[in-house]
């Protein structure tokens, strides 16, 4: 890339140019050059502007809630009745502990399922079957990524729920934490797999060959040399998958049951996986037809949106830290 100072192209030799017209042309082009530089810089700066706008407008909409609801209630209470104000009785309550815990629970289940599968795909793609990998796994990953999330939710609804119903304890209809976790897992496997695969592919061949030359099996090499070397990529993939899963709304909404009660993990153990639950994104979606008519509930939902925003920011910061540490190690 050419490193020239801002505002002008390289000045051609300022030899005597006979006609004043040539100077004029050069001046005009330089002005144009400056203008276009500013223009594209402005366009790039639009990214910053947009982020600021997002934060500002979400905060504006959530501000009334900060006063009337308060963070203490939002994070501390599990009594969540955001639409009771326009409903038929009962008083409004804005304790969002259930949706917040639900988001984390469902994403955790999703990650627990996704990481083994995604890592396998990455390893097979990068190490054991690269040719087959490039021909089948990468295109498959691209198709996976392209499928709209509503379709995943829909397939979950019509195909996964009946299966879940068989596995679930009696009295449950199959929708719940595990169903949502499975749907999310399928959605984030491509993300984790492709980032991890790229990380594996970036490892110098020497490391691989060295390990094999020392007598290690392929599996030993993968487990003891390659995966640790690709850890930054794996962690990045997991964190980005986490962020994507936290933000998923419609796919989860169709299979989670939407009940604002925290399952009693202590008394039910693993069976709590089959309990219906809710997430921040699901409860925000619930409010889509009440945005204009329920100011209190809407403010509470905007507060949850801010929570999601903060979670996203933290994820990005974590990824940067991981990458920076990996860089400094080298």
């Amino acid at each position, binding site marked *: *890339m050419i490193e020239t100072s801002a505002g002008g192209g390289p000045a051609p030799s300022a030899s005597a140019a006979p006609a004043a017209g040539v100077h004029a042309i050069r001046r005009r082009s330089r002005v144009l050059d400056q203008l276009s530089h500013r223009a594209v810089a402005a366009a790039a700066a639009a990214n910053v502007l947009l982020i600021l706008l997002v934060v500002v407008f979400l905060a504006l*909409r959530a501000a009334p809630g900060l006063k009337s609801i308060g963070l203490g209630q939002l994070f501390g209470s599990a009594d969540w009745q955001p639409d009771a104000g326009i409903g038929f009785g009962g008083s409004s309550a804005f304790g969002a502990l259930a949706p917040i815990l639900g988001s984390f629970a469902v994403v955790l289940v999703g990650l627990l399922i996704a990481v083994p599968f995604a890592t396998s*795909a990455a390893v097979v793609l990068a190490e054991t079957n690269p040719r087959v990998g490039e021909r089948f796994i990468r295109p498959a990953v691209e198709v996976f990524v*392209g*499928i709209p*999330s509503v379709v995943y939710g*829909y397939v979950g609804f019509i195909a996964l729920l009946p299966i879940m119903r068989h596995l679930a304890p009696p009295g449950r209809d199959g929708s719940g934490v595990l169903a949502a976790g499975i749907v999310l897992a399928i959605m984030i496997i491509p993300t984790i797999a492709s980032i991890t695969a790229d990380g594996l592919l970036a490892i110098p061949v020497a490391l691989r060959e060295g390990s094999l030359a020392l007598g290690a*099996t392929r599996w030993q090499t993968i487990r003891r040399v390659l995966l640790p070397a690709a850890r930054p990529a794996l962690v990045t993939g997991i964190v980005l998958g986490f962020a994507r899963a936290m933000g*998923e709304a419609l796919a989860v909404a169709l299979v989670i049951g939407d009940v604002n009660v925290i399952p009693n993990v202590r008394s039910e153990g693993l069976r709590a996986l089959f309990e219906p639950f809710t997430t921040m994104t699901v409860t925000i979606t619930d409010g889509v037809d009440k945005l204009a008519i329920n100011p209190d509930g809407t403010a509470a939902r905007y507060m949850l949106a801010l929570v999601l925003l903060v979670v996203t920011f933290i994820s*990005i910061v974590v990824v940067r830290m991981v990458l920076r540490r990996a860089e400094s190690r080298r």
Partner: protein
Amino acid sequence: MTRRLRIQDRIAIGALRGMVVVLLALLVWMVVFLLVQGWSELTRLAFYSSPPNIAGPGSGVGPQLFNTVYVLVLSMLFTVPLGLAGGIYFAEYAGTGRFTNLLRRASETLATLPSIVVGLFGYALFVQATHSHPSRLAAALSLTVINLPYMVRVSEDALRALPEGLREGSLALGATRSQTIARVLLPAAMPALITGVILAAGRVFGEAAAILFTGSNFALTAHSNYSLSPLDSGDTLAVDLYVFRTQAEPSAVPDARQYADGVAALLIVVVLLFNVGARALGRVAVRRGRHK
């Protein structure tokens, strides 16, 4: 190598491969399942021309198809110039200083935003703050927020992939930087850029959450709506799947399930087409690039 180690190796590698096979089988099954379920609707011509019918059988996706293309094109009208300009900046002008770092980080953050958060933002800014209704313009602008980072990255990559010689040659001939970019680099990067635009379009084609909050009035209109005004609301295909699923009353719409199957199948078909198309274009671009 001991026998035990070799057996462990085989089992482990086999397990890894097995998991991948399960994954691929799942994908294939999902696509086939949806296509089979939705086949009867996909092969029904009226499916593509009629509107959704909330009071009887025979719903179609006519207006939704129109709205999907409309919102997509409208959003690309904003995304492409802005994203291309940003990409040009990062590829040709930006240094490695703090300002550039800030810009890059902002772009990354934008790219990681959950689409429902963008939907709420879009509602707050494009609908509420302007005292207007959900509209396809608001939806298109929200899609731009989602897609801008990707377009910037695609443009930057396309330009960076060009050989240095092009730039140096042009500058040596006395062109300014902007002239170089406009007359030499952009045309040369055109195939990659076009592929990038198609990929970007594919990414937001299936977007539902953001459009649900900004462009759809969350209703199944009882009226076929092919309006041209960007200020009118409208459902896209993905939104339609969700809204129809949750709104249609079964006693009034007896074929609600088939219809939803059809919409899901259509979404899959379009995704596959996008994928195949973008790959084919990518190959053509590479081939053309080689000839130059």
